[in-house]
């Protein structure tokens, strides 16, 4: 995966196509107990007989990267910012089930600050889609030929007292990179993070989303839709707070610190 970043960085200045490829990337995988246990331990999920609701994202992430790092992709991988993510878990996925993962890109459109694109993932068991994900990325300053970017989902930001305080170490980015395959340099090392304009490493948005969902363990339905907006980058180390609020049909949540709101999410 590091290779993909290197390749993408080297190719960042080359001319690119102006529209999305119609590529669909696929793989079949049966996650091992060890892999799920590693992910669960870093994100704060228990090791149960079903996959954490956010886990399939890491199964799809490699395919997302392959698609986005390809020369046929209209945006350069370095500099893409994950701005929103929506996950729908249709039913609990058993640890040990064989899963087919499909990823494609869609909704490439101009945005006030650049260009926006969605990477759409579907995970199936047999003929049934059991999990879907939509990751929205923004390329600042990039150009899309047509259209207006799709609206980001509406998510409330609860403001109550903290439900939890998280002590996040400087190595969190490296630890999540090891279990997710997301080795974006902004998460790994302060020097590489600086090269991309961050004073220190930042937490992966999907780790923050996963850890927030893990905090609702036991209080979640078996099928759910989890939508998150990534706001301010969460610098490491840090001590942010989680805010949760039970609402009709689910939960609203936010991760905040003195720097502001890092993530707002809703579970329905």
């Amino acid at each position, binding site marked *: 995966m590091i290779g993909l970043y290197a390749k993408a960085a080297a190719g960042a200045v080359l001319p690119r196509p102006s529209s999305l490829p119609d590529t669909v990337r696929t793989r079949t995988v049966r996650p091992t*107990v060890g892999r799920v246990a590693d992910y669960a331990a870093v994100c704060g999920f*228990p*090791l*149960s007989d079903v996959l954490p609701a956010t886990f399939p994202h890491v199964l799809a992430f490699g395919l997302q990267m392959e698609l986005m790092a390809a020369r046929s992709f209209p945006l350069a991988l370095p500099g893409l910012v994950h701005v929103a993510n929506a996950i729908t878990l249709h039913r609990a996925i058993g640890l*040990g089930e064989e899963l087919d993962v499909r990823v494609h890109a869609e909704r490439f459109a101009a945005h006030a600050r650049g260009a926006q694109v969605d990477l759409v993932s579907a995970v199936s068991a047999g003929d049934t889609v059991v999990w879907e994900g939509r990751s929205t990325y923004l390329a600042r300053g990039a150009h899309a030929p047509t259209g207006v970017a799709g609206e980001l989902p509406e998510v409330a930001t609860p403001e109550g007292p903290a439900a939890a305080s998280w002590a996040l170490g400087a190595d969190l980015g490296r630890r999540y990179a090891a279990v997710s395959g997301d080795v974006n340099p902004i998460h790994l090392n302060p020097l590489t993070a600086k090269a991309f304009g961050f004073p220190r490493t930042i937490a992966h948005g999907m780790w923050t989303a996963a850890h927030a969902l893990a905090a609702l363990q*036991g*209080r979640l339905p078996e099928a759910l839709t989890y939508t998150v907006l990534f706001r301010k980058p969460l610098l490491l180390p840090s001590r942010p707070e989680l805010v949760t609020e039970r609402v009709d049909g689910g939960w609203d949540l936010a991760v905040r610190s003195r720097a502001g709101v890092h993530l707002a999410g809703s579970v329905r």
Partner: protein
Amino acid sequence: MRKAAVIGGNRIPFARANGKYARASNLDMLTTTLDGLVARFGLADERLGEVVAGAVLKHSRDFNLTREAVLGSRLAPSTPAYDIQQACGTGLEATIAVANKIALGQIESGVAGGVDTASDAPIAVNEDLRKVLVALNGARTLQQRLKLLGKLRPGQIVPEIPQNSEPRTGLSMGEHAAITAREWGVSREAQDELAALSHQHLAAAYDRGFFDDLVTPYLGLTRDDNLRPDSTVEKLARLTPVFGKGDGATMTAGNSTPLTDGAALTLLGSDEWAAAHNLPVLARFVDAETAAVDYVHGRDGLLTAPVYAVPRLLERNGLTLQDFDFYEIHEAFASTVLATLAAWEDPGFAKERLGLDAPLGSIDRSRLNVAGSSLAAGHPFAATGGRIVSTLAKLLHEKGSGRGLISICAAGGQGVVAILEAAA
């Protein structure tokens, strides 16, 4: 006083240590087992009277293990919980605690049991290192800290790994049991026969679907992976003794329980609570007794406390040892079960040690551990009580009448025994 109803149970298959559950913590296994129980009995968002469980091998971070499991489960978070620990007696002692509160009318429902992992065992820092670190934490000046840092030695990196041995004797449980086996002249053949039967009984119980509503698969296991359905006396006879010394050694890995990971829980309630939740009652919890022996300076063996507990329990309930349809005697070692039975049959022991005019006598061996026991299933210390209580309750329910005796020996020279009767 009303008797607590045993409504059902749930456990995960037991796994040999460092195997299928190597990555699972006590909290993972206990929460999973609790959620399985909640799913089986439709208890999501239900506030129960309390959940009582424990673990023998426990990380210091797990001080509130059972409460944490409740908070992570689908039970209402308003369900109180607490941990207990009485070595291998933990699960049954937890059941007694819950049953007693139900009998007293203090609670209407509860869950009892335990969990243990020998794989994810706590490893403590070296004791010398720990003392330096504790002092360092309390040091106020740089000078004090530097002085303490000077006490660090390379050898202190060697950690303390938990030992399956008695703190006061330094002998392993197996070595203690070997002394008792020799004292009672328990033969190798008799031990291997009991072990083979345990495997055959457990396999048969699985095959006839007995555990379908008692066990929930976990991490790829659907049955206890220590179970060897084709176990025979002949195969067991080939193993080399591992406990005891010399020619007379009889205890092998085959007739001793292996280190195991797992969790087991039992659901109890008042009859009214069970009826209100449309849950059939399998059995009732009649009475229990705990005993302890002086295995350090006295004449008794480490695992022989149930020998003393049972006569006291029988007397209080006006029963004889023969008044039972099922006997669930925990198979810490095959020799432990056989020495216990021998002690109850021995007139001299009855008179001199138990203070009885006559021995308790022998039992109908066809009623012993009829659905298998720890030699086959394995023995995650604190989980064994929950496994046995749920198993016996279901056996009594199937039979529709009668009563069963549970006997569990524990480290520290303790024993926990109990009586269950079929729900009329």
